[in-house]
C-alpha cells in the first residue's frame, strides 16, 4: 500500500513540470476566491505566508465559484488526497464536522493559547465564530463575513414624494417594518417597468425574514427541525404578499430575467427601487454607479418587533439581520497539519486580513476604482479597515457603517449536520408557496419532515449496527465460487474431445478480459451497490444496516422528488427522443439524395454531435440567455416569432416551463449521431427493392412507407432503445447547465441521475443514492423489456439471418 502510494506520488511529481513546486513543501488551499475582483488579495496572503515560511509554496485553487464544490472535497477526503486548508462557507462546516471530515481545531487552540496571534472567540463576532462550532468544538476560524441590509434608491423616492406623501408615507426615509415595506413597494411599483421591492431579489431568502420573526428552523440543541412554525409561515406570507404586489412570482421572475449586470444593474437603472442585499454589492455600486443617490438601512422587520410588542417585548434587537461568510478549516487527512494551522492562524489574523485588503485596495486603486473593504469576522480588523479605507463620499461611508453596525445584531444559520438539506428544502418550500402551488404551512411541513428525517437518521444512526465491508467480499466470493462450480459442471458434462478442448481453452482465453472486467468493474460493484442500498452509508464512516428503509423512503416521504425527477426525465425523453429521431431521419433522407456538396452538408450537420457535451452546454447557456440583447436565440425570437405573433420571450433555463424545452432544443441540434445511423440504414437498403416496387406501380409515398420505413425499422428500434436509455440517464448537460448545486427553476431540471449525485455527494447519503440507482436500473430494464416485447410488431427482421 505504502509502496503504491509512493510510486503514485513520485509519478505525479514527475508530471509536475512547474519549477515552482520542485523541492519545496507545498501547502494546498482549496476554495480560494480567485475571481477577478478578489484574486489580488487572495494571492497576497499566500505570498506573505510564503515569505514568512521559506521553502513553502502555497497553492491556491478555486474549484468552485464562491463555494467549495462538496463532491470534490468529499472525493478528495475519502480518496486520501485532501488539501491542507479549505476555505469553506461557514454554514456547511457542521455538515462536514459531524461526519468527521474536518479536523477539530481545539487542540491547536489549546496548544497556542498563550500565543498572542492565536484566534480567540472574544475577538470575533459571535455570529461568525459560533457558526463554525459544532458540539462545542471549533472547526473553522472565520475570515470574511457578510450581512444583509436594505438598499434604497433615494432619487426615486424623491421623484415620487407626492405619491408617497399621498399614501401617508415619509419619502425621506426607507421603510422600517414589513407592512411599511409593502405600502412603499405598492406606490413605487410600475408593472413591467419598475419593481418597488422584490422580496427575494438581492440576497434575503426566507432565512432572513424567518430570523426577523424569531424563527430559527432548529431547536437550540439541534435535534428537531422547526421549519414549519407559524412565525416562518408568517415570514413566507410576507414574501408572498410582496410578490403579489408585483403581479405574482411568475411575473416578477419574468421581469427579473431581463436584468443585466455591471452598469445596467437593475438597482442602478432604477428597475428595482429597494432591495435587500449583502455588503458585497457596495463595490459594484461604487464602480458602476458612483453617482447614484442611494441609502443603506437595516432591513425592515415585523411590525411587532420594532414596536417591541408581543413576543418581541423582551427582545434586545429592534432590527436584526442575517450574517454568513467564510472560514478556514482543515480537512481530515490533511498532509501538513501544523503548517495548515499556521496558515489558518495567519489567514484569519488581523495581519492577514490587513494584507489581503491592502493588496486588493492597491489593485483596485490602480484600476481607478474606489476600494470598499468587505466585512470581516474579526472585530479589530473591521475597525482598522474602516479607519484606513473609509470612503470620502458620505453615502458609501455611511452604508459601510450600517453594515458593520448590523454585525452585532445578526443571526446565522444554525450549525447542523443537515445544513445543506435544510437550505435546499427551505428553497423548495419557498418556491412552492410563491408559485401558489402550496399553502405556506403545508410546504413548510413537507420540508420539515424531510429535514427531520435527515436529523433522525443521523441521531439514530448510532443505534444501528455496523455491517463490516468484508461481507460484500464474502458474498462476491461465494457467488463467484457458485458460478465457477456451475461452469465446471457444464465443462465436465460437455465431454469435450481433444480438438474441442483446445478450442474451448482458447475461447476462454479470448473472453477472459471481459470476464475479469465484468467481475471487477461490474459484478462486484453491483453487489456492493445492492448491499449499500440496504444501509446508511456516508463513505466517511462504516455503513450501518437499515434494511428496506431506503426503498421505503423512496416510495413514501421522498416520493414527490422521485416523481418529479422521473417525470422530468419522461418529459424530456417523451418529446426529445421522437423529435430527435424525426430530425435525424429527415436530415438523413436529405443527405441521401444525390446532389453536389454532400460532404460539406454532412460535415455541418454532424458537427454538433462530435462537440464535447460540456463545450456545447457552455455554448448553449450563452445562446439561451433570456435577454434578447445578449442571447442569440431570443434575439432571433424577438425579431421573428415575437414580432409575428407577439409571443413573449421565453425565459429558457431561467423559467420553469421553458427549461426542459431548452434542453430538448439543444438535443435536436445534436441529432447528428442518430442521423449517421439513419444514413447508414438508408444506404444499406438494396436498390432492387425500390425497383421491384416501382415496377409494381408504387409512387414515392408508397415507396417510403412500404420499403424505406420497414427496412429502417431495426435502425429505428436501435435509436429508440439507446435514445431512451440515454435520456433517462441524462446527467452531464444538466450538471453543466443548471449548476452543480441547482436543479433549474422549481426543480424543472431535476433528473434521476442528478438527484442521485446530489444525494450521494452533497447530502452524504450513499446508501440512499444506491437504492435510487437500483430504482433507475429497474425503470430502464422495464422500459427496455417493454420495447423488446413490442418490437416484434413493428420491427422488420430479415428472415435469412
Amino acid at each position: 500500500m505504502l509502496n503504491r502510494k509512493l510510486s503514485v506520488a513520485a509519478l505525479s511529481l514527475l508530471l509536475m513540470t512547474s519549477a515552482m513546486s520542485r523541492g519545496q513543501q507545498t501547502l494546498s488551499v482549496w476554495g480560494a476566491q480567485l475571481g477577478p475582483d478578489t484574486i489580488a488579495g487572495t494571492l497576497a496572503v499566500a505570498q506573505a505566508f510564503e515569505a514568512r515560511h521559506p521553502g513553502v509554496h502555497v497553492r491556491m485553487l478555486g474549484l468552485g465559484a464562491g463555494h467549495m464544490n462538496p463532491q470534490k472535497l468529499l472525493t478528495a477526503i475519502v480518496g486520501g488526497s485532501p488539501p491542507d486548508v479549505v476555505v469553506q462557507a461557514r454554514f456547511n462546516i457542521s455538515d462536514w464536522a459531524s461526519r468527521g471530515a474536518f479536523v477539530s481545531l481545539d487542540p491547536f487552540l489549546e496548544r497556542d493559547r498563550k500565543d498572542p496571534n492565536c484566534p480567540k472567540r472574544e475577538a470575533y463576532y459571535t455570529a461568525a465564530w459560533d457558526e463554525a462550532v459544532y458540539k462545542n468544538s471549533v472547526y473553522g476560524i472565520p475570515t470574511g463575513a457578510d450581512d444583509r441590509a436594505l438598499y434604497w434608491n433615494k432619487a426615486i423616492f424623491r421623484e415620487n414624494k407626492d405619491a408617497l406623501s399621498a399614501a401617508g408615507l415619509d419619502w425621506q426615509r426607507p421603510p422600517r417594518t414589513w407592512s411599511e415595506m409593502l405600502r412603499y413597494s405598492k406606490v413605487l411599483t410600475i408593472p413591467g417597468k419598475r419593481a418597488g421591492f422584490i422580496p427575494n431579489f438581492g440576497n434575503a431568502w426566507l432565512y432572513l425574514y424567518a430570523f426577523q420573526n424569531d424563527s430559527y428552523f432548529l431547536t437550540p440543541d439541534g435535534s428537531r427541525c422547526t421549519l414549519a412554525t407559524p412565525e416562518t409561515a408568517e415570514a413566507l406570507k410576507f414574501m408572498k404578499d410582496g410578490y403579489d404586489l408585483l403581479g405574482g412570482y411568475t411575473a416578477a421572475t419574468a421581469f427579473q430575467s431581463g436584468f443585466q449586470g455591471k452598469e445596467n444593474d437593475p438597482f442602478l437603472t432604477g428597475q428595482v427601487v429597494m432591495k435587500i442585499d449583502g455588503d458585497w454589492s457596495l463595490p459594484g455600486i461604487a464602480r458602476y454607479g458612483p453617482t447614484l443617490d442611494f441609502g443603506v438601512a437595516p432591513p425592515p422587520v415585523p411590525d411587532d418587533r420594532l414596536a417591541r410588542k408581543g413576543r418581541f417585548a423582551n427582545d434586545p434587537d429592534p432590527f436584526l439581520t442575517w450574517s454568513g461568510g467564510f472560514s478556514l478549516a482543515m480537512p481530515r487527512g490533511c498532509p501538513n497539519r501544523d503548517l495548515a494551522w499556521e496558515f489558518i492562524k495567519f489567514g484569519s489574523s488581523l495581519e492577514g486580513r490587513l494584507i489581503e485588503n491592502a493588496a486588493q485596495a492597491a489593485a483596485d486603486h490602480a484600476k481607478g476604482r474606489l476600494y470598499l473593504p468587505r466585512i470581516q469576522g474579526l472585530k479589530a480588523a473591521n475597525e482598522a479597515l474602516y479607519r484606513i479605507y473609509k470612503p470620502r463620499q458620505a453615502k458609501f461611508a455611511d452604508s459601510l457603517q450600517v453594515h458593520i453596525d448590523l454585525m452585532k445584531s445578526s443571526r446565522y444559520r444554525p450549525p447542523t449536520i443537515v445544513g445543506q438539506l435544510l437550505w435546499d428544502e427551505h428553497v423548495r418550500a419557498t418556491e412552492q408557496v410563491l408559485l401558489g402551488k402550496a399553502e405556506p404551512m403545508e410546504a413548510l411541513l413537507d420540508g420539515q419532515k424531510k429535514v427531520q428525517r435527515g436529523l433522525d437518521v443521523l441521531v439514530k444512526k448510532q443505534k444501528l449496527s455496523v455491517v463490516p465491508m468484508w461481507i460484500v467480499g464474502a458474498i462476491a466470493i461465494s457467488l463467484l465460487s457458485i458460478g465457477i462450480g456451475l461452469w465446471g459442471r457444464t465443462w465436465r458434462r460437455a465431454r469435450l474431445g481433444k480438438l474441442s478442448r483446445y478450442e474451448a481453452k482458447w475461447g476462454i482465453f479470448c473472453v477472459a478480459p471481459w470476464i475479469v472486467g465484468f467481475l471487477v468493474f461490474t459484478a462486484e460493484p453491483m453487489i456492493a451497490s445492492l448491499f449499500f442500498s440496504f444501509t446508511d452509508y456516508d463513505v466517511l464512516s462504516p455503513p450501518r444496516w437499515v434494511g428496506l428503509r431506503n426503498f421505503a423512503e423512496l416510495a413514501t416521504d421522498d416520493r414527490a422528488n422521485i416523481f418529479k425527477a422521473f417525470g422530468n426525465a419522461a418529459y424530456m425523453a417523451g418529446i426529445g427522443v421522437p423529435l430527435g429521431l424525426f430530425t435525424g431521419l429527415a436530415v438523413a433522407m436529405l443527405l441521401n439524395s444525390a446532389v453536389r456538396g454532400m460532404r460539406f452538408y454532412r460535415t455541418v450537420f454532424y458537427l454538433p454531435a462530435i462537440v464535447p457535451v460540456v463545450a456545447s452546454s457552455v455554448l448553449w447557456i450563452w445562446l439561451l440567455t433570456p435577454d434578447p440583447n445578449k442571447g442569440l436565440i431570443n434575439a432571433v425570437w424577438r425579431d421573428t416569432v415575437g414580432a409575428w405573433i407577439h409571443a413573449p420571450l421565453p425565459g429558457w433555463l431561467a423559467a420553469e416551463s421553458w427549461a426542459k424545452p431548452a434542453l430538448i432544443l439543444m438535443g435536436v441540434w445534436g441529432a447528428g449521431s442518430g442521423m449517421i445511423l439513419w444514413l447508414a440504414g438508408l444506404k444499406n437498403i438494396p436498390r432492387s427493392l425500390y425497383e421491384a416496387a416501382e415496377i409494381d406501380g408504387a409512387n414515392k409515398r408508397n415507396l417510403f412507407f412500404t420499403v424505406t420505413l420497414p427496412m429502417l425499422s431495426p435502425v429505428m428500434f436501435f435509436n429508440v432503445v439507446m435514445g431512451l436509455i440515454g435520456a433517462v440517464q441524462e446527467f452531464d448537460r444538466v450538471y453543466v447547465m443548471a449548476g452543480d448545486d441547482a436543479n433549474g427553476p422549481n426543480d424543472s431540471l431535476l433528473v434521476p441521475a442528478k438527484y442521485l449525485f446530489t444525494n450521494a455527494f452533497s447530502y452524504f447519503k450513499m446508501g440512499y443514492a444506491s437504492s435510487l440507482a437500483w430504482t433507475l436500473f429497474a425503470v430502464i430494464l422495464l422500459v427496455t423489456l417493454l420495447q423488446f416485447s413490442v418490437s416484434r410488431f413493428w420491427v422488420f427482421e430479415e428472415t435469412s439471418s
Partner: protein
Amino acid sequence: MTSNLLFAVGTLADWFGMALVIRTLYLLAKRQPGVGVSALFAGGSLLVAAMTPAFHGQFGLPLIWVVLPFSGWAVATVGLLCLVNVLRYLLERTGGRLKGIAVSGVLLLGAVWLLRTDPEAHFDVLTGKILLSVESIIAIFCLALAAIGIMAFANREMRKLATRFVIHVTLLCGCVVFGLPFAWLMITSFKEDRDMASPNGLVWIPKVQKTVPYLDPEEPVFQGDYHGNRVEAATIGRNSDGSYITEVRRPASLAGMSINVRPEQFRIIPNDAPVVAGKGYTAFVTREMSDGRRQLSLMTPASLKGTVKVVSPDEVEPVREVGLRTRNYTDALESMPVETQSGLLYLRNTLLLVVLSVFGTVLSSSLVAYGFARLRFPGREPLFKILLATMMLPGAVTLMPQFLLFRWLGWIDTLLPLWVPAFFGGAFNVFLLRQFLVQIPLELEDASRIDGAGILRTFWTVMLPQVKPALAVVAIWTFMGAWNSFMGPLIYINSPENMPLAYALQLFQTERGGEAGMMMAFASLTILPVVALFFFAQRYFIEGITFSGFGGR
C-alpha cells in the same frame, strides 16, 4: 408611377443589365455568336436603370438588395421562376399538364390575395420592405409551392432541377440552423466585453479598441521573469529605496498580484494606451485617475499634439475599429492554473485518455467478440446473455462502489480509473463486433486453420481485416466517449494537472462564466482539435459507420 414602382423597374433593369453583361463576357470567352445582341440589350437595360430616379444615374447593385430579408429574396425568386415557367409552358404548348398550371395559378392567386388582405404586410418586396406576419408567411409558402409546382409539371428536366433546388435550399437552411451556434461561438470569442450585450441588436462584427504604444515615464510597465513566469506588471507606487510597487497584469492567472520590481531586473515595455475621441480632437489615455477621470495626450489636431488634458469619462468616446480581439484567447490560456502550463496539460491528458481508451477498447473488444462469435466453449451462451444484460445497466449503479474500488487501489486523482476499464472490453462494442464476426463465412477460418495457423493468428490475420469498418465504428465511438467524458473526471480527478479538457472547461465555467469572451475562447479551443480531427478523418468517421452496414441489420 409611384416611387416604389420606379424603384422596382430600375432595380430589375439594373439586374437584367448586369446579367446580360456577364452573359456577354461568357459568350466572348467561349467565342460564341450573339455577342453583339447581348451587349446591345445589356447597354439598353443599364440605360433604363440609370434613367430611373431611384438610381440617380449610378450603376451597381442597390444596397437594399444585399440587405433584403430572406423572405424578400424568396418571393422575388419564386415570382420570377413562376413567370418563366408559365411562359415556357405556354410556348411549348404540350397538352395534358394544364392541371399543374391551374394549381400553380390558384396558389399564386391565393398568395397574392393573402398578402393584399393583410393590412400590416407592405408588399414592397422589391424595396426589401416586406413585413413578416403569419399571413405573409403563408403567402410566401404558397408562392414557393406554386413555383415548384410549375417547375415540376413543366417537364422532366425541370422537375429534377426543382427537386435539386428544393434540396439545396433546405440543406442550406439546415446548415444555417446547425452551424449558426458555432459561428456565434467563434464571433463571441473574438468580441470585446462591451459588445457582449447591446440594446441595438446583437453585434455580429467584432470590433477592438484602437491603441497606441505609449511609454509612461512616471508609471512604467515592466516585463520580466518572476519565479519562472514571464510577467507583465504596471506600476502602482514607489518604495523608498527606489524600487517600484507593481501590479501584475499578465499572465491572467497571476493578475492582480503585487510585486516589487527593481528596474535593473525588469525591462520597461510600452503600454497599449487606448485611443479616444472627444469634441474636435482625438487623444490617447495616459492615465486613469483614482477619481475616475482620465488624463489624455492629444493626437489630433496636429497643432495641439502632445498636449495633456484631463477629462471625465463621458466627455470622450473610445475609438474602435473592426478587428478580432485575440486577447480573449491568450487571457483564457494564461488564466489556467500555472501548473497546467497554460492548459497544455489538459490537452495532453485528454489525448492520453483518448489514445489509451481507443487502443484498449479496440484490442480487448475484438478479442472478446471473437471468442464469443467463433469459438465454442462450455458456458458461452449464458455468459453472452450476461453480457447483453449489462448493456442496460446504468452507470449510476456501479458509480459509487467503483469509486471505493479505485480508492482502495490508490488511483484517486490519477487518470487510471478513466482508461484502465477500457482494456476489459465494453459490452456494447463486444456485441457489435460479434454480430459482424458471426457473419464471416466459416470457410475462411477453416482455410486458415488448415494452413496451420493457430487461433490467435487466424484472429489477427483473417478475422480482424474482415471487420475493419466495424472496428472503425468502435474506435470512433470510443474516441468520442473519451473526449467527452465528464462524470469520471468529475469524480476522480482533483488536481488541475491531471484534468482532461472537458472537466477543466466546466470548472472554468463555474469560475469565470461571467466573462463570455474568455469562456467562448476556451470552448473554441476545446472544440477545435476534435473538429480538425473530424475534417481529416471525415471519411472514416462517417463512411466507417455508413458502410459498415451497421444499419439495416
